[in-house]
């Protein structure tokens, strides 16, 4: 993950204009996000291995999503509130 991108991401979501962020903090957030993605990827890859499928599909990803929630990465509340009301086109 690029540091610049993360900085923009964080600054985009700051509600107070006065708030700023130090360069070191941005670096740490970048690392946290990297670990988050790697963790999710590894878990879903493992799940695919267990299901003996060579491709990680949505099914496997859905299975490991609650694990990410339980580790405090995501909250259930937030996801359900901001869920798209549009119907899915499969």
């Amino acid at each position, binding site marked *: *993950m*690029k540091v610049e*991108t*993360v900085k*923009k*991401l*964080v*600054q*985009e*979501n*700051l*509600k*107070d204009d*006065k*708030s*700023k*962020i*130090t360069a*070191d*903090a941005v*670096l*740490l*957030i970048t*690392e*946290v*996000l*990297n*670990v*988050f*993605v*790697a963790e*999710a*990827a*590894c878990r*879903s*890859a*493992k799940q*695919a*291995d267990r299901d003996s*499928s*060579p*491709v*990680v*599909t*949505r099914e*496997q*990803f859905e299975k490991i*999503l609650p694990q*990410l929630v339980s*580790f*405090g*990465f*995501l*909250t259930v509340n*937030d*996801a359900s509130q*901001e869920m798209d009301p549009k119907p899915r086109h499969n």
Partner: protein
Amino acid sequence: MSTITREIIYIVRHRKICVTEKMENPEKENYEKLAYVQRLKAAVHYTVAEICEERGKECDVTFAKQVISALSEATFRYSQMMSRDLELFAKHAKRSTINTEDVKLLVRKSPQMLMHIQDLCDRREAASSSKKQRKKKTSRKDPQEDEDDK
């Protein structure tokens, strides 16, 4: 006097421009922001795809496109949540600048992550302090060298 009037004129003009722009296209700003967010999402998507490919090679699997887009969306949401929390933490500590301490507080719930982040932070601090020392040393050395040259 003239500089003040010039400033006032500038402010008035600037405001006028802003107002007219808003009056003419009330949704223009909204669209611009949306485009910006879309670009950020695209950047996140790209990196997530890269990381997934890397991990997939290790475990000998490939990732479906749906998974990558779902994961990048999750990452985006996670970063949103994180920035909100960080802002609140900083505010609680009566600061307006988000610090490394806030990030450590954010990841306290997963001990391994906390250890990792702490380690990274310590290393970074050590590096910066050694840099400062080096700077000090060089600044001390410089005048001596100058004297030697003389």
